[in-house]
């Protein structure tokens, strides 16, 4: 089983997004690098709008991710509520 990953710039917004990823993906592996954070999860990663909003204390549109994204891998399935990366079909 391969990992999927996402890398985000390190800032106040992404601190909340990363917390949300950790909450929703118990197998997440956090790798802090200069100015960025890389998060690996075996096979499938979900980013939930509701969890991010709870962390941020404000509304969050999942497409805001585009502003902080550095790179990612895996197939993407995006709706208004969830952003999923996976190697499954």
């Amino acid at each position, binding site marked *: 089983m391969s990992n999927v990953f996402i890398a985000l*710039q390190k800032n106040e917004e992404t601190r909340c997004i990363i917390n949300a990823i950790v909450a929703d993906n118990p197998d997440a592996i956090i790798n802090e690098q200069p100015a960025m954070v890389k998060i690996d999860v075996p096979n499938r990663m979900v980013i939930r709008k509701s969890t991010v909003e709870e962390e941020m204390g404000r509304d969050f549109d999942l497409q805001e991710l*585009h*502003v902080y*994204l*550095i*790179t990612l891998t895996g*197939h993407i399935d*995006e709706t208004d509520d969830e952003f999923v990366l996976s*190697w499954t079909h």
Partner: protein
Amino acid sequence: MDIKVNKKLGLKERYNLMTRDLAWTPTYQAFKDVYPYMQYEGIKIHDWDKFEDPFRMTMDAYWKYQAEKERKLYAIIDAFTQNNGHLGVTDARYINTLKLFLTGVSPLEYMAHRGFAHVGRAFPGAGPRVACLMQSLDEIRHAQTQIHSMSNYNKHYNGFQNWRHQHDRVWYLSVPKSFFDDAITAGPFEFMIAIGFAFEYVLTNLLFVPFISGAAYNGDMGAMAFGFSAQSDESRHMTLGLEIIKFILEQDPDNLPIVQHWIDKWFWRGYRVLTLVAMMMDYMLPKRVMSWKEAWEIYAEQNGGALFADLARYGVKAPAGLAQACKDKDHLSHQAWNVFYNYAAAAPFHTWAPSEADMKWLSEKYPDTFDKYYRPLWEHYAKEQKEGRRFYNTTLPMLCQTCQIPMFFTEPDDPTKVAYRESDYKGEKYHFCSDGCKNIFDHEPEKYIQSWLPVHQIYQGNCFCPDVDPSKPDFNPLAEVLRWYKITWGEDNLDYADSPDKKNFEQWRVQATGN
């Protein structure tokens, strides 16, 4: 009165309405006249509507988020400049990575802009057209923001001033230039596999992530800002690359052998260009984030492995050159930096022999190869330099006909033997650095016999200013080539130890910390 409230549209409906539904089928003109480039590469597409753009980005959302990125970027650039950020970098040696980037990479961003504009126009499907349009706009943004960010360094350091002029002329810059010229002169489907898939998806992480993380680590907020801003677009580009290859493979089984050949070819072409990144990571950053070997293992072996395991369901195999590239990871950066050390007189940036502390790090990162093969070389150079004989190579190297890199790569299983390959075509002999480059040539010799090889061009007399007089007794061909390159001797070139950049930086540092 009842007011009917429409439910807000979901992401998928919004995307469909604002992209797919805006396309139409031409009736006044024949389809093949409107889309003339869809047949000749042999790729068969039956239903363009099957293309899925998973980000489902609509143009209005695109403008909104891109504007946000630009505001953030320029706030950082202004702050960096106002705060004399160029003095806060670890060491002025670092600045040379930016010279390499501006002369070698930024012009490719502009070419990518043109390439995706062209391909977006060529594809009949609304989904890929919109994604290509966005990518085309991203790429010109990248070119502009990079030039803008680095213009601040041009006020203080040598070697930045003629980047565009040099991109079309200087020997090692023909490597990235010819790579992109090769892609943009291919058909639209090949361009998408070359740049969208092989470069953006498989290799771009190796260019941007370590480079930009390295910029941050070395105190360069300007480069970090443009890099991350550009990289945030790359995720969209990578996804386009992955979706387009899946789409092409799903459309017709006849597409597989054509696509496999392109994967093999463009993996190797891109990998060769990344040689410059390998030496940048291991030798040019005063503070290093990770070694080339580590970056290769994370992004090419693990991530590339996951990708090709996934694509195996279409019958796609990992690129033919991947195994050799994995063997090379212990050698690539050392061999490349050696060549640039040799030719430091002919490049508009500085090189240097690694210090004892640098070599300690290299030994730790490359336990199987550095001490055995490369440390003795650097110790020899350092000794020569200490005794006033800094080595500058004044003979010109043989270049590979395909990648245009000097022939310094060694045999995959013997790091003491330089690899040579050759092919005969129409009575001429052509030389290659590797099986990968030879195979590319053998498949399309008519394309690659046209290569503009800098060394050949110099010997043919094509790299001098119009006023040159080779019959003069004091004619100095190397000096004349540098004049044509617009490299200022003693300022832009030679060893870092003797450079005005080093002298200035040290003086400014003293001034910055007291009166």
